[in-house]
């Protein structure tokens, strides 16, 4: 089924499988829209479908677990120092105390409470990652719509640029950009957004190409609607599924990327209690047996990324169902 609409760029076979699954989802969405005779019915029907999807979502254990973990970290990020048991910045204890009843996660090399630092460490990354993800999804959607709808030489040129940007692994490109432009929170967010835009563009473009061949788009064109109208009013609502999935996935990967860049010294800077930074400062002590200052923030990163992946995966499954 997917064979007549493959994205023609090289190494697309992997994408084809995903596109096939997504396409199946769109076809259903398309039918849903076509089925409504009057516009009011259509809207009611859409609302109904949305409600059903929400119910399906809440029935998935993966979604519930992921959402719960996310919620815990959001509470930590908002509460910050107000809810941590001790100060995340001041050394109030002897260094390298193993986990005990006072310091559940032990204390680090300076005698700071690791639990407090892990809780406070949620904030910076939970501000930076969603901003970067939203920027990349907005930019990627815009580019994907234009490229997928108009095709032609614009698409061809931009596809090549996207391909070139994707040929450098995210962290390598991130290090190059941060090194030449200088380190700051704005550069970090901008870098992650720029790194993710081509990935989002590729997904949205593939979805738009599949959608643009369907009857409702053709008929809108025949009605003489402008390109802008067809793209924003006709195609965009029907590719919103993969865009939402992409947004969730991107938030997860933004956490991943920011944590890694911070770990390498090219991301958030001290005195932020960022998790990546904490691991960077303490992983060397593991060899001497002091594992807790590095392992707990490491697990925090893993849990946050895994939680967003679970949520994204559940949303994708429900949209495809």
């Amino acid at each position: 089924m997917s064979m007549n609409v493959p994205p023609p760029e090289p190494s697309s076979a992997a994408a084809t499988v995903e596109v096939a699954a997504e396409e199946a989802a769109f076809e259903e969405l398309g039918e849903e829209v076509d089925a409504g005779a009057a516009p009011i019915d259509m809207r009611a029907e859409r609302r109904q479908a949305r409600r059903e999807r929400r119910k399906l979502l809440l029935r998935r254990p993966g979604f519930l677990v992921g959402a719960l973990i996310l919620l815990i970290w959001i509470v930590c990020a908002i509460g910050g120092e107000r809810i941590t048991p001790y100060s995340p910045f001041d050394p109030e204890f002897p260094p390298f105390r193993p986990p005990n009843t006072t310091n559940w996660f032990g204390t680090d090399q300076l005698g700071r409470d690791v639990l407090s630092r892990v809780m406070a460490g949620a904030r910076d990354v939970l501000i930076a990652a969603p901003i970067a993800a939203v920027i990349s999804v907005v930019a990627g959607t815009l580019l994907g719509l234009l490229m997928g709808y108009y095709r032609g030489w614009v698409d061809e040129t931009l596809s090549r640029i996207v391909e070139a940007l994707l040929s450098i692994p995210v962290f390598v490109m991130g290090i190059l950009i941060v090194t030449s432009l200088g380190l700051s929170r704005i550069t970090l967010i901008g870098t992650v957004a720029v790194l993710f835009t081509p990935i989002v563009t590729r997904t949205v473009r593939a979805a738009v190409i599949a959608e643009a061949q369907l009857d409702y788009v053709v008929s809108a064109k025949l009605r003489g609607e402008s390109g802008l109208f067809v793209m924003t009013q006709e195609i965009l609502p029907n590719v919103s599924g993969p865009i939402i999935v992409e947004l969730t996935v991107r938030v997860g990967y933004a956490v991943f990327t920011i944590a890694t860049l911070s770990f390498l010294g090219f991301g958030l800077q001290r005195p932020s209690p960022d998790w990546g930074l904490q691991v960077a400062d303490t992983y060397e002590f593991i060899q001497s047996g002091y594992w807790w200052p590095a392992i707990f923030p490491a697990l925090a990163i893993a849990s946050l990324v895994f939680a967003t992946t679970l949520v994204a995966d559940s949303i994708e499954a429900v949209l495809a169902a």
Partner: protein
Amino acid sequence: MTRYVVRRVALSVLTLLLLATIVFLIVFVFAPGDVGRQVLGPFASQETVDALNEQLGTNDPLLTQYLRLLKNVITFDWGESFQYQVPVTDLLWPALGRSAKLAGLALVMTIPLAIAAGTYAARKRNTIADRSIVTVGLASSSIPDFVSGVILQYLLGVKLGWFPVLALAPRGSGVLTQLDYLMLPALALVIVYFGYIARMTRAGTIQALDADYTRTAVMKGLSRRQVSHGHVMRNALQPTVSVIGVQVGYIFSSLIALELIFNYPGLGTLIRQAAGAKDYPVLLAAVMLVGIIYMVCTLLADLIIAWMNPRARLEAGRT
């Protein structure tokens, strides 16, 4: 096929040229201030900064600088490292060799394991075995490399003492000793890449199992073996080949963090240190090398797919 190969290679070269342009824009055009000042820091005298800029040619017109970068890419002669005053390639090739050893060990373990798990999950679709493979794959590929590296270092290296904690074997040690030392970072790579490859294999196998041609093959009475090898595997593994090509090309991303944790002087370490010291000749050379490796890997993957599936050749030839 020849036509396809020529087109595909030409496309890679074009992409590489674009990549060089993007890198040029980032480093020479968008970067604020002059490179000499960046390298030497705020306390260096203006004369030394000017001298360095002169040596680097950053005062030349942009077009001259751009052409020089392209020449560097083509000849792969990048001049001398700022930091060590030796030719860049003298640093680059040994580092690449060490990284290749580590990546090779990881891939030899990951690829068979992930393909086996993905195929198994597809054949036992929706059973507990399938769900666990999918979930483990999802979890393993969502954990950042440095996180799994640190956790493995603690559990298998420090706590259980199974493998050396740092990756570089003493000088002159035999192959087995070297492998032993590389085991922990390689296992961290296995964790990261297992998920992607297994999930893609599963998706590809399911699609092939459900395809009409498989049903036809079964109905016309071919043996299980014939159906499995001639029809299912041949088609199911195409997305897998593609994802392996991309992931091998991206492996240096993981190596930057893992080589730091396990103190291994490979290409990742070289990139990190060059960036930290603003050693632009080394950094540019390493970034372009990583890009070239990615191009070669995806090119090979596409050629293998084209060889496996004539339809892919035709489609790519048409556009």
